[in-house]
């Protein structure tokens, strides 16, 4: 079999072997429930406390401000629903960007059914929200703004720090979905000026099914999962100790290597973009050219459709995605690409290549090598290509 080239790190990352090693004791002999009063339980409790301290320190937060969850989606839901319901008496208006991950976007939509009113903030053609538009959208009833740190499809990084200053002035609770940035680029809750921040371990070489929500002291949220008194009454459920330990270990290691990894990936990203755009006509790069995650490449290949591109790439040993992984089973083109102003037929032809710490230059070169043939073959098969065979080379 072909060597597999994995270029879907924004969807999920392989777990670091060291992370698994850190977790294993808690999947074996250290099985205590942290809520118990006996020795076995106290060891588990200590492991959770220590993990919490580490995560807090990395984010520039206090330990009590960290709530462990079962992933990024739960953290987003807890932040958005939790803050909305907790502040219902103050107002019912919420602002989110139009390119949020579905975990925020669909949550906002659901809140509309519960009497909240939502503004979906547009973005410009490179995916940036405008501070002016945000300032104008704010009303006296605005109780929450949620704008993601970096977008999972196109990698555009928002000016969260500036938004934070604006919102701090107006005392409006501010959530950022940092699932794509934590462990990848520097994230400090005070520098960003956020009150709520979501993260997910499997996006930075940690385990699946565990994440965290940062909640600034004084920020009120209602729990999403009621029950036992875990996580200071803000998230019930027997603690996933192994997962929590894995999250902290993965975060620590990612942060240690962040500088060198992101520099390396940035170079590979540029090599990949250039290599593809030079060898294939009618290709567009989606997202911002520089305010962009170092590992993200998102392209539209005109005249062809994304899924057939992916299937062909897979047959050549390259694993990639089109739009966000969660929605690629659906027939709708990416809401993010549409928000950038792309027409439907172009949005349907998107390819997301996301690099990771295991990605090598050979992987990138192999991808550059196989893509032109695939694109050519699919275009030959496309009824749209005929008609426009003479379009100019993609910008």
């Amino acid at each position: 079999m072909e060597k597999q080239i994995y270029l879907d790190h924004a969807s999920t990352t392989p777990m670091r072997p060291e992370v698994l090693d850190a977790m294993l004791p808690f999947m074996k002999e250290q099985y205590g429930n942290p809520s118990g009063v006996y020795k076995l339980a106290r060891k588990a409790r200590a492991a959770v406390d220590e993990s919490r301290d580490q995560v807090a320190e990395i984010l520039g937060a206090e330990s009590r401000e960290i709530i462990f969850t079962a992933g990024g989606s739960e953290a987003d839901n807890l932040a958005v629903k939790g803050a909305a319901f907790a502040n219902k008496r103050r107002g019912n208006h919420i602002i989110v960007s139009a390119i949020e991950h579905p975990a925020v976007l669909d949550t906002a939509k659901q809140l509309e059914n519960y009497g909240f009113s939502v503004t979906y903030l547009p973005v410009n053609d490179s995916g940036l929200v405008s501070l002016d538009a945000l300032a104008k959208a704010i009303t006296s009833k605005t109780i929450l703004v949620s704008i993601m740190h970096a977008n999972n499809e196109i990698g555009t990084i928002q000016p969260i720090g500036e938004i934070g200053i604006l919102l701090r002035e107006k005392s409006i609770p501010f959530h950022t979905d940092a699932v794509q940035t934590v462990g990848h680029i520097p994230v400090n809750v005070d520098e960003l000026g956020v009150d709520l921040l979501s993260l997910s371990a499997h996006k930075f070489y940690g385990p699946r099914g565990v994440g965290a929500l940062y909640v600034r002291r004084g920020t009120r949220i209602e729990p999403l999962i009621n029950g036992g008194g875990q996580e200071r009454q803000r998230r019930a459920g027997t603690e996933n100790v192994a997962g929590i330990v894995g999250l902290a270990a993965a975060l620590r290691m990612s942060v240690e290597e962040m500088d060198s990894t992101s520099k390396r990936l940035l170079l590979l990203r540029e090599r990949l973009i250039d290599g593809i755009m030079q060898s294939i006509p009618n290709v567009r790069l989606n997202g911002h050219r520089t305010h962009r995650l170092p590992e993200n490449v998102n392209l539209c290949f005109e005249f062809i459709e994304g899924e057939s591109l992916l299937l062909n790439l897979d047959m050549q040993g390259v694993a990639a995605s089109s739009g966000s992984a969660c929605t690629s089973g659906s027939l709708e083109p990416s809401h993010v690409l549409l928000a950038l102003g792309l027409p439907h037929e172009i949005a349907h032809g998107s390819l997301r290549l996301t690099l990771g710490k295991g990605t090598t230059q050979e992987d990138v070169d192999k991808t550059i090598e196989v893509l032109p043939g695939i694109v050519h073959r699919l275009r030959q098969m496309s009824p749209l290509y005929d008609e426009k065979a003479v379009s100019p080379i993609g910008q």
Partner: protein
Amino acid sequence: MYSEKVMEHFTNPRNVGEIYDADGVGTEGNPVCGDIMKLWIKVEDDRVVDARFKTFGCGAAIATSSMITELVIGKTIDEALAISNRTVAEALDGLPPLKMHCSNLAASALRRAIEDYLQKQEGTETENDNNG
């Protein structure tokens, strides 16, 4: 998610291309929904003797296009009209629920190509001097 048959047709699609002197052409779908299929047929003695397609679409769209050209070649016009989206999906050992609409697309494109042929036929028969 796709059956082996689907993957096989997707990987080696039959009858890709155009027929320049086609007797009927049908197009179905639109760029907004992400699938467009164009199908050409050549008819002799009331029988489809050749079929070709071009498709912009997902794996299922390409596989159903390929499959329907295989199914239709050799069939009489009446037999060809009887090819339903179900026929195509079954011939491919089934399609994922979300992708069922793709087989619909192929069946409609074929129907349109046949209608196009029949219309031209009528023209030829009644006026006998059109571009037949």
